[in-house]
């Protein structure tokens, strides 16, 4: 009974959030033609853009945890994404052949591979979080950038690594690594990222981020952003919380990368270059640092904007207009669209304390 009461309370508290998400989902499925009320309006191309928008939401919200809430400056987020993408693709494509499986085992394998991708990315996040002990600001930024590029060049060197492994007698490992085929890109990845799955995972990531930020640990992260010395004086282990923030953020970036790989069905290390990290940085700052709402809206809007410009026959100009709009936005609103504000359902209600 207690559990049911709790669930009812939760629903009563968050009915707006639940209603919005369910309605948006239903709307998209209706337009997609899965629920046959109107003729299909969204082609596979549009669905793919929507899925990319959702993945970008996961990525931006996770980047927001480092840059927006903990106040660190990371510009190598695509590196985590790369790790996640390659790990999950390794499980579904190389280790097990997911394409030949039945529906439920396939789904289970996919979710398992996503979690593995996230975990390995989180370990990398932990490792890259360690230098934050010493580095600050721009120096930290450049180390994260370097990390992203190192990941990319390791994947690109997969042929050399496999040749080296064969030389020292580890033939079995060298064959698996050769299958990654870094410089040629990994293809024939099964299309496992269904729209509903991406949707559910992106909502889950937003909820987890929100709950984290409004928890004790999240408060600790916020205090690090506001003033690191003061936070330390208050007895907060700043190093620990920075590393937690990095690992959690990297976990979601890894999951996002796994989803990305199974939408695009072809991954190449150059997909995850510095330029990709810059994209997420732009989404984050355009939306407003320290605002989950801003991240969600900016990631969606700025993913759709270039494609929208393509659709209305601005193909030539789309990549010129996009940065121009960005510059104008930053000049007019230096704090981003949302600044620090949030939608009400992303902020937990304050409980009265007697």
């Amino acid at each position, binding site marked *: 009974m207690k559990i049911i009461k709790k669930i009812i309370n939760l629903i009563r508290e968050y009915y707006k959030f639940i209603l919005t998400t369910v309605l948006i989902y239903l709307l998209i499925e209706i337009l997609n033609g899965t629920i046959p009320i109107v003729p299909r309006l969204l082609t596979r191309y549009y669905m793919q853009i929507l899925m990319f928008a959702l993945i970008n939401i996961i990525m931006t919200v996770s980047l927001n945890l480092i840059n927006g809430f903990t106040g660190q400056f990371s510009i190598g987020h695509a590196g985590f994404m790369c790790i996640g993408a390659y790990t999950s693709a390794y499980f579904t494509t190389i280790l097990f052949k997911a394409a030949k499986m039945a529906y439920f085992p396939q789904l289970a394998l996919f979710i398992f591979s996503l979690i593995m991708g996230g975990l390995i990315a989180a370990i990398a996040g932990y490792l890259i979080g360690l230098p934050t002990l010493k580095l600050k600001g721009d120096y930290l930024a450049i180390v994260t950038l370097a990390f992203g590029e190192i990941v990319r*060049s390791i994947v*690109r060197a997969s042929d050399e690594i496999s040749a080296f492994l064969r030389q020292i007698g580890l033939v079995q490992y060298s064959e698996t690594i050769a299958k990654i085929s870094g410089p040629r890109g990994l293809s024939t990845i099964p299309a496992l990222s269904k729209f509903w799955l991406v949707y559910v995972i992106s909502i889950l990531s937003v909820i987890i981020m929100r709950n984290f930020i409004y928890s004790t640990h999240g408060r600790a992260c916020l205090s690090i952003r506001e003033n690191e*010395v003061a936070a330390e004086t208050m007895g907060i282990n700043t190093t620990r919380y920075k590393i937690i923030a990095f690992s959690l953020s990297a976990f979601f970036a890894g999951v996002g990368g796994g989803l990305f790989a199974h939408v695009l069905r072809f991954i190449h290390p150059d997909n995850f270059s*510095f330029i990709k990290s810059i994209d997420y*940085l*732009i989404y984050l700052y355009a939306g407003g640092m320290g605002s989950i709402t801003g991240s969600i809206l900016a990631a969606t809007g700025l993913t759709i904007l270039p494609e929208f410009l393509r659709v209305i026959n601005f193909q*030539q100009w789309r990549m010129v207009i996009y*940065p121009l709009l960005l*510059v104008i936005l930053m000049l007019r609103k230096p704090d981003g669209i949302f600044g620090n504000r949030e939608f009400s359902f992303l902020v937990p209600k304050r409980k009265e304390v007697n």
Partner: protein
Amino acid sequence: MTKKQLSDSINNNILTYNKLTNWKKYVFISVIILFFLFLYILSFGIKAFLQQLVNGIQLGSIYALIALGYTMIYGIIRLINFAHGDLFMFGAYISYFLGNYFIVHNFKFSFITVLILSMAFTALLGMTIEKIAYKPLRFKPRLAALITALGVSLFLENFFALSPENIPFPLNKIVFGPRFLPFPALIADKTYNLAGISINNIKILDITLTIILVILLQYIVKKTMIGKAMRAVAFHKDACLMMGININNIISITFGIGTSLAAAAGTLFALTYGQLQSPYLGIWPGLKAFIAAVLGGIGNIPGAMLGSYVMGISETFATSINSNFGYGIAFVILIVVLIFKPAGLLGKFTKEKV
């Protein structure tokens, strides 16, 4: 504070030399480096070593010119000017067009003229960008200017890569087009053979011109009134206002000098490699030079030089072993250096005071 103390503290801040301390550390590091170089000589021979050293110094010179601009702009307004790589590109293209024009019209001394004109045009562009995009954000959150810089960078790349056939009249005369262009041979290539090492006159030109420009820069920064004002602005902006220094002009001039150095680097780059791939060519040299500036301690002119040469030489050595390895080595060196010296090779690590 007496006048002497103030001038001392200004001399000791960024944009100046830092005295080498703790010489044991440097001896240790140089022993490790010498060990690796020794290994290289053992496996490839002394001739290959010297050849790669010369090539590395050449590449390092080009990086140094870009990195100096980065470091000056960072030193004075604490902005990572991501558009710097694109100004490098702009300089290269301007000298392409000027060079073609001069070759057709049979100008004498065409290379020096091309270089100076290209530097002047690029400086104009750089100052315009500063006035439009960065000046309004000077006292706003620092990261807003960073995102604006990213926006400007994307804009320059994508705008100049538009193909002239498809766009209306006044613009199609400005854009460069996405095509590959062969750079005119402004200087006839002469190769000298010094004991088995091939050195051509372009290599000599790259290295000497860099040295000349750096000496000129040091002279400007150290000996002239403008340089003094620059150091003062880097030190404390509000105090400069009280001393009657026009901050806006000084920052403009710094941008002009920094971007003209980037243009010189662009011209040398194009002359050395004899080609212009596309208007996106500035991204990677720009990024590498930025890393070089951080490696040496950002905001520090000798540091930027040192970082660039370390970067260029290590990159050529690693590339001569394996091309993928060469790509990643820069980032590995960066991370290792920053872990041991968190403010770069010559930077000073300032502790935060409460």
